[in-house]
């Protein structure tokens, strides 16, 4: 009788299993698996497992930064005398805490002002992690569908538009930033009302697409959301025109945008949970 370990299937089991899993992954990519699908559900579980560690390390990193700062203050004070060293250390600890509190207070006050000015239902969230590979521009937030967040909702910060939610779990969510090459926001130039799509580009940057050569557009023009994409309300600041390239063939201009929000230094954001009214397939708003 043939040894079962001597069969073709057994000898090539690693390559065959790998091949099957490659096909599964290719299917997931091509069919655009969502979190609600059977294949997409474990994604939320991974995010939930990681969230407490990420939240804890964010807090630890803040504390570590304070300690690092205090170390230098203590070294300087040691040159004078022990009494002063202790006093300075205590004062600096207090000062660092107060500065941190003041900065946080200022940020939250600005967020509150923004929230009131917008007159929209929003949920405030802290940034607790960045994209795992760095190849996409995404951030992880500490609020999820438990707070009413859903994929597709718009995210803003003090400066302006930040991006859109792409995935949520119970208490965490991921936001795709404006400079990700898969992000697109319907927008227009505030001064001339020239309409286009603001999108990220693969090598880090933001452009405005489909601006016709005859459109009135200048460097420094403010670019705002049009409210036509069903994600952001009309008139939210996205950024300003940084450069316009008129040379070369094609129907459209090559317009670079400087985002108003600092996408590299986000700590707190607001998620717009109230989507603007839009027409549905049946024609009702």
């Amino acid at each position, binding site marked *: 009788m043939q040894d079962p370990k001597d069969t073709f299937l057994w000898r090539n089991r690693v390559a065959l299993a790998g091949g099957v899993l490659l096909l599964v992954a290719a299917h997931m990519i091509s069919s655009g698996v969502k979190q609600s699908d059977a294949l997409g559900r474990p994604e939320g579980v991974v995010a939930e497992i990681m969230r407490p560690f990420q939240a804890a390390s964010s807090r630890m990193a803040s504390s570590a930064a304070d300690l690092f700062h205090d170390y230098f203050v203590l070294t300087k004070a040691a040159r004078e005398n022990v009494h002063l060293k202790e006093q300075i250390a205590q004062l600096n600890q207090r000062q660092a805490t107060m500065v941190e509190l003041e900065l946080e207070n200022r940020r939250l006050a600005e967020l509150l002002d923004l929230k009131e000015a917008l007159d929209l239902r929003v949920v405030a969230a802290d940034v607790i992690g960045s994209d795992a590979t760095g190849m996409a521009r995404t951030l992880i937030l500490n609020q999820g569908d438990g707070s009413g967040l859903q994929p597709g909702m718009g995210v803003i910060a003090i400066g302006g538009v930040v991006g859109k939610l792409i995935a949520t779990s119970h208490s965490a969510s991921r936001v795709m930033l404006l400079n990700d090459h898969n992000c697109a926001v319907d927008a227009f130039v505030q001064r001339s009302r020239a309409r286009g799509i603001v999108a990220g580009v693969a*090598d880090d940057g933001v452009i405005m697409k489909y601006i016709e050569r005859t459109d009135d557009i200048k460097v420094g023009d403010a670019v705002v959301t049009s409210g036509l994409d069903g994600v952001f309300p009309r008139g939210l600041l996205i950024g300003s025109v940084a450069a316009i390239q008129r040379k070369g063939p094609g129907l459209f201009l090559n317009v670079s945008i400087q985002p108003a929000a600092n996408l590299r230094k986000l700590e707190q954001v607001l998620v717009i949970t109230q989507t603007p009214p839009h027409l549905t397939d049946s024609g009702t708003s």
Partner: protein
Amino acid sequence: MLFAVATLVALWLETEVRLWLPAGILFPNLVLILTVDLGLKQHNGLAPALAFAMGYATDALSGTHLGVNAFMMTLIFLLSYELSRHVWVTGKIIGPLTVALADLLNTLGVMAITAGVASVTTMKAPAWRMILIQALITAAVAPLIFMILDVGKRALRLPVRVAAE
């Protein structure tokens, strides 16, 4: 179990450290190193499933297309596995070299899948430079990760290298 814990630690480091680094992209792809280790040293039936799971977990915390990293990690596992079966050369350079090539393949593969092949062919010199530096950084860290994994395997009394029967 060792690889599951290692993957969670790697993802935690990648999402947190990157947040604090000024140039976030220049951080080694730790999950990729784990996958190459699997491909080079773990030749059992569970290994491809582990590679797929590590990619899937990365997908949960990265990118916009679910399945991209799962696909790339399974592919990199298979290529490392085939490489380890056919290259009759051993030495400390094979691991990091495989990691560097795998990192290049991974970056270009993810870009091609998510942004189209044109985004790779039209990429400018600074972007190529960043990708190469990223691959070199990942390769430089690889021996340390391999060593930690070997220590972990010995501590758990697992074989350091599992050959196909």
